[in-house]
């Protein structure tokens, strides 16, 4: 009973979200960035969000994280409304944004310190450093890290809080192809072990198909969810299987067509 309630509590509901930002040159003018976004993530679901640059993916994640508030609409975790940031929703930002004044170890344990639970849970810090393969860099400062290493630290820093919902904004974008594939498997392993609900923003269609239960494709200006595709492939998935490639072809065609359509709209 308790377990069920807990799982219920980690579902994510996004209802008719609209968000606009003031235009920098003209404060009276507002530009609509997200126009009526609606979807839900069942507890433990891994869903990808793809779409062209500037369509509002990061903005959507910031709204769910509670860093921004929507103009209208509702955001729900389980049955609770999101009004402010909280540790139960982790966000890995597009840039690693490590605290430069803290070592790798202290960056990773920042969430434990912030929540005042370091004493009880400090043994996990080592686990998470091992997870992202950085235990030998524990005492290094961020300016000594490569871009990929920094992004791994950022991932570990978000994971250590055991969020119910993990929001990932192109977390693997800065990694090389090999590390990237290894990290994809690591994220999947974590997701399966914890049944964390995950929303993954990516530019990489292969990554979206490889990782997610569903793929949501966004259109730009204003951002809408154009299409949702279920990925009904067995896990672990083969990147070169015919079904994988067929799905990839479909998505590419759709994205390409949508791109052309939006260019035509402009003219």
């Amino acid at each position, binding site marked *: 009973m308790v377990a069920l309630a807990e799982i219920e509590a980690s579902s994510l509901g996004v209802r008719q979200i609209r968000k606009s930002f003031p235009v920098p040159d003209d404060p009276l003018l507002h530009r609509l960035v997200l126009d009526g976004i609606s979807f839900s993530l069942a507890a433990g679901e891994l869903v990808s969000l793809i779409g062209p640059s500037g369509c509002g993916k990061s903005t959507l994640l*910031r709204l769910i*994280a*509670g*860093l921004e508030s929507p103009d209208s609409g509702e955001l729900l975790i389980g049955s609770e409304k999101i009004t*402010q*940031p*909280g*540790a139960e*929703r*982790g*966000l890995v*930002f597009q*840039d690693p*944004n490590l*605290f*430069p*004044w*803290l070592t790798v170890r202290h960056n990773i344990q*920042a*969430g434990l*310190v*912030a*929540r005042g639970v370091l004493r009880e849970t400090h043994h996990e810090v080592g686990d998470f450093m091992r997870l992202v393969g950085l235990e030998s860099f524990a005492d290094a*400062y*961020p*300016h000594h890290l490569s871009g990929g290493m920094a992004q791994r630290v950022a991932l570990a*820093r*978000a994971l250590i*809080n055991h969020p119910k919902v993990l929001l990932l904004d192109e977390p693997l974008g800065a990694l090389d192809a090999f590390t990237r594939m290894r990290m994809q498997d690591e994220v999947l392993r974590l997701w399966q072990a914890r049944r964390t609900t995950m929303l993954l923003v990516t530019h990489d269609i292969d990554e979206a198909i490889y990782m997610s239960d569903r793929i949501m494709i966004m259109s730009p200006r204003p951002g809408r969810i154009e299409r949702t595709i279920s990925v009904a492939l067995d896990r672990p998935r083969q990147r070169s299987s015919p079904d994988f490639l067929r799905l990839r072809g479909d998505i590419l065609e759709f994205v390409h067509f949508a791109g052309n359509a939006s260019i035509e709209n402009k003219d």
Partner: protein
Amino acid sequence: MLQEETSRRSKISPPESGVQLASAPTYPKPGAVQRMERRSELGWRAQLAVPLAALVALAIHLLFSKSAPAVETHSYALFFYEIVGVSAVLAIAQRFWMPLRSWMRHMCPIFTAAILSLGLWDIVTFGFRLLPMPYFPGPAAVLRSLISDRALLLDSTWHSLALLLSGYSVGVLVGLISGICIGWSTPIRYWGMPLLKVVGPIPATAWIPLAMVISPSAVVSAAGLIALAVWFPVTMLTASGISNTRASYLDVARTLGAGRAYLIFRVAIPAAVPNIFIGLFMGLGASFLTLVVAESVGVKSGLGWYVSWAQGWAEYGKVYAALIIMAAFFSTIMTLLFKVRDRMLVWQKGVIKW
């Protein structure tokens, strides 16, 4: 150069011996090691430059002081003998201690130049009396004042140090608190910033007439003025550092579950530390100025007071002696602050350039 040598060397030897290379001069393998040894030796010219300069300066002095009584030149000559002696000791010590050697190589030209300019000073003042006399004594006379009046100078330094530290620490403490409040809270910024902008730029020394009327004792008012002089730059730079904290750091902390205390003390303040140090340095400069001025007009102790007192008696040797002490005193404090900063900003290594 040295690194290049090391890496080339380590290719043909097991890695653990590569580590020894820098510290163990008796490493048995010939070739590269010996070549390095020779290059890192301190040349004869570098070893002799300082004692030679000292002997030259001494010769200059003795040349001009034939007519003067021996007591006049005794301590000055002794000073140069000491330099020669210390150089000899260091020349031996550097053979066994690598860091000393590189320090000596680095400092040799500057010491030589400093000693030679003592000689030049001697020629211009003591030798040919090219400058009006009571105002420009020679180095020997200054050294004599330094030695003969050392008790009073030490006492004055001590008083200056106490006054400076009390004023500076109060100013820094208040400045940090007000800077953090102004930087963090919008309402406090609204009311505090105009006050800061109007009152802050007034030089602290301009308050001296008022401070003397208000305060019960000159020392207390001087400490207050020093605190005021420090408070302004520390507040200004702390506030700007805090309010310019990158929003993304605050966002990250919020998503990690941080409350307000974490955001202020673990994000905004660390992010502002580079700025805060700029404020601390500016405040230190302002505090030196205020200290000396306050001591020469109101406070009856300290180096500033000593300078104006000696000037009153036209004892310019003492004036210069006090200036030398002041230079050493202030630059030591400045160096200490630099050391503290380098420690606290290790995470910024490679970024700071001042």
